[in-house]
């Protein structure tokens, strides 16, 4: 892959000055860095199929770092939905970063090739996602970007070696195209309405800023690394949001049928593969690890309604709001509840063993 790293900053939905400032600080710091292409788009989740921001993201080839106000998992699968794909890369920003780097057997490429649910080919480039809520300051991003850029860049090959040796096709292409040199690359496919910032800093090109307005949206995003195509979401949702593609793979077909604020399908998904990036509960919004996390949630022991009970209530509320009749537990209820006992050993077993081992 080319040594050039594309950095896209996806802005926050609101106009919070602190958040805007961070976005601007990062952009300003990064345009001073060589070997980068920096652009700014609106909030990822609100981008439509034909938004210039979407077109821009799709036009980016090479490794991509997306900084967004979303959990990295939510950002990754929102990008996937927009048709922006690549091998998932790991950064060192974020609380989970350190753990992620050494979690046993958690291969960063996990699930990408063999998963029957997701047989689509993955472009040979990395897509990194950073949650801007984890960012402490622009400098932290600059340092991480430098690290990634150095890690990704192909070592410079002297021309003489090239003549003697045989350059790989991508090396040759880069050589012939003159890509990756000091000259900022042309952007033939820059979005129609995209505009450049007025003052370009002498050290590098100004970031591309795409700020076409984006109305707020609400729809599920599927994590195809987790999805097993069990179809419980399509059975449960009575608003026609889900469909299947020509490979019989579950997909979000009519996202605008989705009811704003309703995350019910996410609650019935047995794999927690359905993300509502805007939901207040981290587990639904795509946080990594909080669900299968280190701590057990004992809320139900103390009286919390089950996820299914909540999902049914949420669905009934939306049905009634649509002038339809509530269906309660009579439609699309997952059949999996009964076989939970067959699960392999898990944290609870460890917890119970741990409790027994303790000398209380």
């Amino acid at each position, binding site marked *: 892959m080319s040594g050039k790293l594309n950095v896209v900053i996806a802005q926050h939905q609101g106009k919070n000055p602190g958040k805007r400032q961070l976005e601007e600080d990062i952009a300003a710091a990064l345009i001073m860095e060589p070997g980068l292409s920096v652009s700014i788009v609106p909030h990822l989740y609100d981008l439509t199929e034909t938004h210039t921001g979407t077109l821009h993201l799709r036009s980016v080839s090479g490794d991509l770092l997306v900084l967004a106000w979303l959990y990295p998992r939510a950002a990754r699968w929102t990008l996937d939905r927009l048709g922006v794909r690549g091998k998932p890369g790991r950064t060192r920003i974020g609380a989970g970063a350190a753990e992620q780097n050494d979690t046993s057997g958690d291969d960063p490429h996990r699930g990408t090739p063999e998963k029957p649910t997701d047989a689509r080919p993955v472009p040979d480039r990395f897509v990194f996602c950073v949650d801007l809520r984890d960012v402490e300051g622009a400098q932290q991003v600059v340092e991480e970007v430098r690290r990634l850029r150095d890690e990704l860049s192909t070592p410079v090959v002297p021309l003489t070696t090239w003549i003697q040796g045989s350059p790989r096709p991508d090396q040759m292409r880069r050589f012939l195209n003159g890509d990756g040199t000091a000259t900022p690359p042309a952007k033939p496919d820059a979005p129609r309405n995209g505009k450049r910032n007025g003052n370009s800093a002498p050290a590098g090109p100004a970031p591309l800023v795409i700020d076409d307005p984006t109305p707020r949206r609400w729809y599920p995003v599927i994590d195809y690394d987790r999805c097993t195509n069990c179809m419980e979401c399509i059975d449960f949702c009575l608003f026609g949001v889900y469909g299947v593609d020509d490979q019989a793979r579950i997909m979000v077909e009519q996202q605008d049928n989705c009811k704003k604020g309703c995350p019910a399908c996410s609650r019935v998904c047995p794999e927690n593969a359905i993300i509502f990036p805007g939901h207040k509960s981290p587990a639904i919004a795509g946080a990594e690890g909080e669900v299968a996390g280190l701590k057990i949630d004992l*809320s139900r*022991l103390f*009286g*919390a309604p089950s*996820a299914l009970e909540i999902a049914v209530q949420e669905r009934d509320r939306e049905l009634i709001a649509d002038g339809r009749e509530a269906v309660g537990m009579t439609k699309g209820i997952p059949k999996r509840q009964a076989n939970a006992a067959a699960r392999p050993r898990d944290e*609870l077993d460890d917890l119970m063993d741990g*409790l027994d081992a303790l000398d209380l």
Partner: protein
Amino acid sequence: MTEALVFSMGKYQAPIPVDRLYAPNHVWLKPDGDTYRVGFTAYSVRLLNDVYFLEWDIEPGTSVRERQEIGQIESSKAVASLYAPADGVIVEFNQSLLDDPTPINTSGYDAGWLYRLKTEAELLTPQQYVRMLEDRWEDTQRMLKGQINEP
């Protein structure tokens, strides 16, 4: 005082004192004037392990409904939202626990009380509570395992 009942959680024997009543969401309610003092049963505390954070979402004097969310707790092993055990009014919280929740672990049936609740609701006798624990133990384990998947 009559000896406490016991519920076996694996090797651990959870004592269930007979001088008070219980609610299905694993709290005890001990009459105190015209209210009940409410606290976690040994069963709850055993599952929670060391509690290090406790927070209430409501003010004292608030009317609550059964299973209304009223607070949050975090321990070394678990997190949980907390829910009212019955319809009633929560008249007072145990303020000292907010600074140091250790008594929940060290004195769960006494100094570790959580709040005072005024309620007319029908509550469980110690025998009924132990019966419920026995009846639900398998289900509870399964539910806890199952919930790891759920948001």
